[in-house]
């Protein structure tokens, strides 16, 4: 019975992989009210073109510095907890930049590659979580073009 429960939990954990990240409350609407953000959740065949199986994103305009700092802190925690391949543009751990981008390739889960992306352009913040067979964010750039 214990084995079954563990198997079940593992499979559940696989489906909601972003739940293990510090930034997951943001996707659940616990940081920014859902009325103030644009949330996207796509799973399945529609993502085949992008070599993805799961796509989640949130976009919002921060009302104050605290909101930006809070999201930045969560991203920073995930960056520290998941040392992997990072692509950064002007990103700073000290939150001093008004425009910054961080793309983090998280450790693989099963056969799924995982990515966490964060972009801030003044008050506009975008966070994306992706899973799939996509090899790198460079490939994604090419696919989107």
């Amino acid at each position, binding site marked *: 019975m214990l*084995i079954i429960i563990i198997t079940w939990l593992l499979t559940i954990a696989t489906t909601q992989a972003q739940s293990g990240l510090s930034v997951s409350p943001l996707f659940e609407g616990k940081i920014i009210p859902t009325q103030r953000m644009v949330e996207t959740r796509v799973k399945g065949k529609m993502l085949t073109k992008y070599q993805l199986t799961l796509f989640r994103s949130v976009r919002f305009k921060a009302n104050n510095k605290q909101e930006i700092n809070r999201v930045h802190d969560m991203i920073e925690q995930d960056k520290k907890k998941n040392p992997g391949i990072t692509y950064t543009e002007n990103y700073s751990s000290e939150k001093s930049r008004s425009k910054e981008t961080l793309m983090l390739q998280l450790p693989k889960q099963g056969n799924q590659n995982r990515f966490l992306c964060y972009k801030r352009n003044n008050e506009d913040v975008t966070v994306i979580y992706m899973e799939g067979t996509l090899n790198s964010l460079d490939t994604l750039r090419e696919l989107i073009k």
Partner: protein
Amino acid sequence: MTTEEFQQQAEELRIKLVSVAHKYLGNTNEAEDIAQDAMIKLWLMREQLTLPIIGMASIVTRNLCIDALRKHHKTIDISQLPDEEDFSDDGEQIEQMLKVIDSLPSTQRAILRMRHLQGMEMREIALVLGSTEVAVRKTLSRARKMVKNRLIAIMAVACVIIGISMTTVHFVKLNTNDECVAYVYGKKYTDQQTVMAEMRRSMGEIVEDNTQDEIEQQLNDLFRN
């Protein structure tokens, strides 16, 4: 008691046993059935019986009545079974246990039923079966062990089947369950066009060329310092 002696007493005995069963069950048809069962039991053990047999016959009938009443109330005495805490006493498991008991060899099944379902004493069982108390205890122990092992095996198989089913259903769901939803400032959109447009917009935000922005930012940082 010889076969002839039993046959001579049979009709009178049956009427008395029906009367005993009436006291417990009230229902004429069921009381008749119970009396009939008691007669069969007595017939099978007739060689061990000595006259007068009415006392023994009444006990057998009473126990059968109690058994019938227990079945009516969906209760069962499993307190004497080892490790009973491993099994919850819900109806389904009792039913499963009864099935397991029914699958036991006849002697073990009879002893287990007499002991746990009819509440008979070891001495009574030994008398009914024409055996010794020691032999009855040994058989009962073996029967309990067999019931326990079979129940564990059934539970294990059930767990494996449930586990495989759950995992299969989950993976099938994973593979087939497409999701396409966007919440735009609290308003839900599920049409593929809107959702994919929002998705591409978010992706575009991330992967867009930031060179110009970066230069501006670096200049700002430079002049601020």
